[in-house]
């Protein structure tokens, strides 16, 4: 492997890690505030569809991005309503979000365009052009979200309160700060980040929406979040690692390695899931989620 190959590999790893990163940070915001979010996948999917549809209709990638964010935030608010206002089961709500997204994007896509759920191919202004080093603005937006997340969550009063609400909501409530308000804010931020992730898939990386194009990325992002132990910079590392694994698995297809022979693609694809299971089992370090995550807040208790 020569240096040129390494640059290409780095490049494709970065490209593949961007949707994971945006979705992973979304999960970070949500779970830090105490709302478990297994609906990252679904929110990305509706965002990808809305972004492609709007970019096609208005001939603008930027309007696509806004539409993607809007669609994802609407789904985030449904989750928020169920999880925060109605104190429903957050896992159940997440499963519902994923199913709704998979079904709705396919059925609406088919009804609008009649191409088996795809949007028409996007071209020109309908896609994000490369702005720097062959990457689009969405890549830099997602990367920028890392220091911003780190700073806001770790170094501001708002961030402190948001983290507190995920650890001990009663204390925050006693201090006269709205638990629901903070959690809704976090959930909406998560929605916006998933919107970026989805828009990147359909109007950045690819040229249009395909049914179920997230293909489990939302769950890899969830794995990365656990792997990063709910911290922003490690999230960047974990997502890049998982992106790198995907890039390697694509490159290694049909190539025999010296001493190893041909490594099955599936072995590399399985790594993110396997590593997460092993990490969660406490074999290599421990991953402890925010204490109040997944627990609805009831004032009187």
């Amino acid at each position, binding site marked *: 492997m020569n240096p040129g190959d390494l640059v290409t590999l780095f490049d494709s790893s970065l490209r593949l890690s961007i949707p994971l990163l945006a979705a992973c940070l979304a999960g970070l915001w949500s779970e830090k505030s105490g709302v478990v979010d297994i609906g990252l996948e679904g929110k990305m999917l509706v965002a990808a569809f809305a972004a492609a549809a709007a970019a096609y209709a208005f001939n603008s990638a930027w309007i696509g991005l806004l539409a993607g964010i809007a669609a994802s935030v609407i789904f985030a608010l449904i989750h928020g309503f169920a999880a925060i206002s109605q104190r429903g089961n957050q896992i159940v709500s997440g499963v519902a979000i994923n199913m709704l997204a998979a079904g709705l994007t396919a059925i609406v896509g088919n009804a609008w365009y009649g191409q088996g759920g795809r949007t028409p191919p996007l071209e020109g202004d309908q896609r994000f052009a490369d702005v720097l080093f062959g990457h689009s603005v969405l890549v830099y937006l997602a990367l920028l979200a890392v220091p911003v997340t780190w700073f806001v969550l770790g170094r501001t009063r708002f961030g402190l309160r948001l983290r507190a609400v995920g650890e001990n909501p009663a204390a925050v409530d006693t201090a006269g700060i709205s638990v629901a308000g903070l959690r809704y804010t976090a959930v909406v931020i998560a929605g916006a980040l998933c919107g970026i992730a989805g828009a990147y898939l359909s109007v950045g990386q690819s040229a249009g929406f395909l049914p179920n194009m997230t293909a489990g990325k939302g769950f890899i992002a969830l794995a990365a979040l656990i792997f990063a132990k709910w911290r922003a910079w490690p999230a960047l590392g974990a997502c890049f690692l998982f992106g790198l694994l995907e890039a390697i698995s694509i490159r290694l297809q049909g190539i025999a390695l010296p001493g190893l022979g041909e490594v099955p693609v*599936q072995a590399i694809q399985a790594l993110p899931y396997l590593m997460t*299971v092993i990490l*969660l089992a406490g074999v290599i370090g421990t991953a402890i989620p925010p204490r109040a995550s997944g627990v609805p807040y009831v004032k009187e208790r």
Partner: protein
Amino acid sequence: MSAPIDLPKWADTILVPAVSVVAAFLVAGLVVLGIGENPLTATRLLLQGSLGTGEGLGFTLFYMTDFIFVGLAVAVAYHAGLFNIGGEGQATLAGLGIALVLNNLTFLPGFLLIPLGILGAAAFGAAWAAVPGYLQAKRGSHIVITTIMFNWLASVLIVYLLVNVLRAPQNMNPETPAFPPQSHIPFMHEAFAAFGIEIPSSQLNLTLLLALAAAYGVWLLIYRSRLGYAIRVVGSNPTAAVYAGISPARIIVIAMVLSGALAGGLAVNELMGYQHRLLLEFTSGYGFVGIAVALMGRAHPVGIILASLLFGILYQGGAELAFEQPAITRDMVVVIGGIIILFAGALDGLFRRLVARVMLRPTLAKA
């Protein structure tokens, strides 16, 4: 507002789920309107396609069989306070178990091979659920996350095995050779024909009886056995369980093993009853429908059978509907499933409060 709402038991177990399902269908109707079709026509076509003909009814009951198994799987774990969303992965592994047993013991007669295949399905499904169960019980890994990861691991594993190991040499499709004929579970129309009764042919096979037996078995287990009592105690209060001398860790693993074995029933119906070979993605997302079924059926076997029938109608009717009105694809069923999970599961409290407000108004007025 957060005070417990006292509803009569019949309202809690029947009225609240019914109201949320009706609401789910109203929302689904809005979706149909939104894409420019008539919801009433759609409903008529759906019912006609699923219940209107003998053949359609057969297909409806075939899907119902799938949903009973996955619904029971989710329910048993749910009684132990566990959320098993790994039905997809467990059923996939069960399919692997079936293929390994049936294609390696081809010399056995059917009366031995069929039970062994079913046992293989149950064992592999149970094993794939036992690991997350064990990790939850002993290592504190969250069962939801591990079962999600195990779903993906299963799908990656099965692709690898079907492409590289189990595929018949000449076959370009990633699927195993056909199972030996004596291992096929008889179709219902074949079984009836043996008694001289003719019914329309469909995919429906005798696995339906196994599903109904499993539902009865789960009822006996959960509500009439010592183990079932222990499962319910652990589910509602693990601390109390410890004081009662019940080991939550042990019960968690047992509940997950049972849950995984039940999820294996999906593979029995699809593969031994219909496809007669192992192929990719035969689970078709039914594992997630199982969550909707269990939530709608209040994790009670009778409720699960009724909810499974409803989803069977939706899947079969949905297929017919997609044929008649191409704008409404079968994804509509996924949408309805999602809304039902949202309404009957996550927004349960909302609907309970609505029902309570309507029901309790006269008593409040009197007081």
